């Protein structure tokens, strides 16, 4: 038998492509973009693996055909030359492999989609929370500054016996502030409750859609097989 082509020590392997490192060009000299080179090497690697696999599979085919011809010649059976039993298995393996890869892709796509949806929901939730926080900060800041102003003006008010008019003014100011605070509190409450209602609505819909999905797709429990079911026939 001749030496196998991949037994030759100086053949390039796909793995070597992944570990190859080129010296960097000196500063100021023109060179390729490193990322572009790496990207291209990735493409070459994938193609290389594909070629290696195609070659192996062709080699298997040749061997199988050769064996079949020899067997057919030795027993004079024309039929066995045309139809080989070994072929059926290899074909079956190839078909199953292709089907499996398709299934894998479907699952991967579904997973990627669900990942995207969850991520978006998470980001939106973060936005809403941030917005609510900013809004509440703004309300608080405004209330604080009003209160500060009120305190400052109270301090600046002339000391000494307060006239009726001044007392009335102070009471008016106090009433005004109370109302102001009530209004702000009501605002804040309404806003927060709105947000909460939104979340509850979303949770209810989430549960309802899950329920609906569960009803539509009967969920199989774990297979109640005993050890015997798995035993080879």
């Amino acid at each position, binding site marked *: 038998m001749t030496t*196998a082509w*991949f037994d030759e020590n100086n053949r390039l392997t796909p793995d070597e492509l992944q570990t190859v490192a080129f010296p960097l060009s000196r500063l100021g000299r023109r060179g390729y973009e490193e990322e572009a080179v790496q990207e291209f090497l990735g493409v070459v690697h994938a193609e290389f693996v594909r070629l290696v696999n195609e070659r192996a599979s062709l080699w298997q085919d040749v061997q199988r055909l050769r064996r079949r011809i020899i067997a057919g010649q030795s027993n004079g059976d024309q039929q066995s030359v045309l139809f080989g039993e070994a072929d059926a298995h290899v074909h079956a393996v190839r078909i199953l492999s292709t089907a499996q890869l398709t299934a894998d892709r479907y699952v991967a796509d579904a*997973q990627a989609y669900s990942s995207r949806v969850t991520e978006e929901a*998470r980001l939106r*939730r973060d936005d809403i929370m941030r917005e609510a926080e900013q809004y509440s900060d703004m309300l608080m800041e405004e209330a604080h500054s009003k209160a500060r102003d009120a305190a400052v003006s109270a301090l600046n008010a002339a000391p000494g016996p307060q006239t009726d008019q001044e007392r009335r003014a102070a009471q008016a100011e106090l009433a005004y502030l109370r109302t102001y605070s009530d209004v702000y509190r009501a605002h804040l409450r309404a806003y927060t409750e709105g947000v909460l209602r939104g979340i509850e609505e979303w949770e209810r819909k989430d549960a309802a859609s899950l329920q609906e999905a*569960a009803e539509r797709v009967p969920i199989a429990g774990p297979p109640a097989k005993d050890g015997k079911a798995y035993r*080879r026939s």
Partner: protein
Amino acid sequence: MPRWVHWRRRTREAGPLDVARLRESFAHVAMHGDELPLFFYSDLFIKHPEVRDLFPVSMAAQRGHLVDALVKIVAQVDSVDELTTFLQGLGRDHRKFGVIADHYDAVGDSLLATLEHFSGPAWSPGLASDWKAAYGLIGSVMTAAARADEQVHPPWWRGTVVACERRAFDVSVLFVRPEPRIDYLPGQSVALECPTRPKLWRYYSMANAPRSDGLLEFHIRLIDGGAVSMALTSAAIVDTELRLGSPIGVLTLAQPLSGRHLLLVAGSTGLAPLKAMLDQLTALPQPPKVHLFFGARTADGLYDLDSLEKMAAQHSWLTVTPVVSGNSKFAGETGSLPDVVARHGDWSGHEAYLAGPTEMVQTTVARLAAAGMAQDHIHIEDFGWSEP
């Protein structure tokens, strides 16, 4: 008799394996990439269709696991002790998938057929018998470990979800009643399988010490696109019957306790195994001093702070420091968890237990080691082969 004695004897009887030849042969077939495990599983399923039921719909991750295991086995085939421990764990772990002794022959046949297919003209009777002998050893170590485990544990437990509490936007706490009762060490984990996600097993730590009613608490964080975590965090999980694998894990308190003070660092749901330890400590007459750092990105991610603070109020030996990394307005400690732990004092006399996102754990380990804590006083969980 230790397993490795058995291994050596078998090796000698079969004649020494040509390890170099095995490795060279594996390097050649590994060149075919994903085609190798793809061919293997297709060959296996065509010859033994009943085996297909043991696997999930998507085989992409499974093919990776197979190649990883083969790479590890071929790399360590001459360092028997390490490999034996790995294979025993693998054998025990495969019980929950419903793997029985007969499957090992089927897998061996398909593995050999696959190697032959991809070896091309390099395949020879000598190489075939080398691979056969190597697989025979692997299979015998795995089946022996599985058989020994059969005497002690069922292959898996049924566990009914009795409650699901949403504690944060993306964290739920599940209470599960296993049947029969599971005995485990606080800090250990089990693999969970949810009926709506068949054959997808994920590891979660129990967040409580074993209780008289057998109830288990799990902390589940929703991972974007995580098929299992999504099913487990949904309210529809209540009353569902899960499957639970054998408890595993080495993140447990030393028995007897070392006497050193304890530093616990939990990132997000990494809290679960550490909370189980706290639960265990509260039952002791004289627990050591414990400082728990509990970190999350935002304040509402500190999903279990109420119960931790209640615990700290009841027990003078426990200090709890909540840490928020992403929100500077938090009233407590802010910043990255490793930073906060590091600036909180000298931990060199402590025994540290860390759990949480890999990056956070690695950084904390590095910070503690740099600050002079001995490596063997730092405990982290490393599932290795059983990584979900």
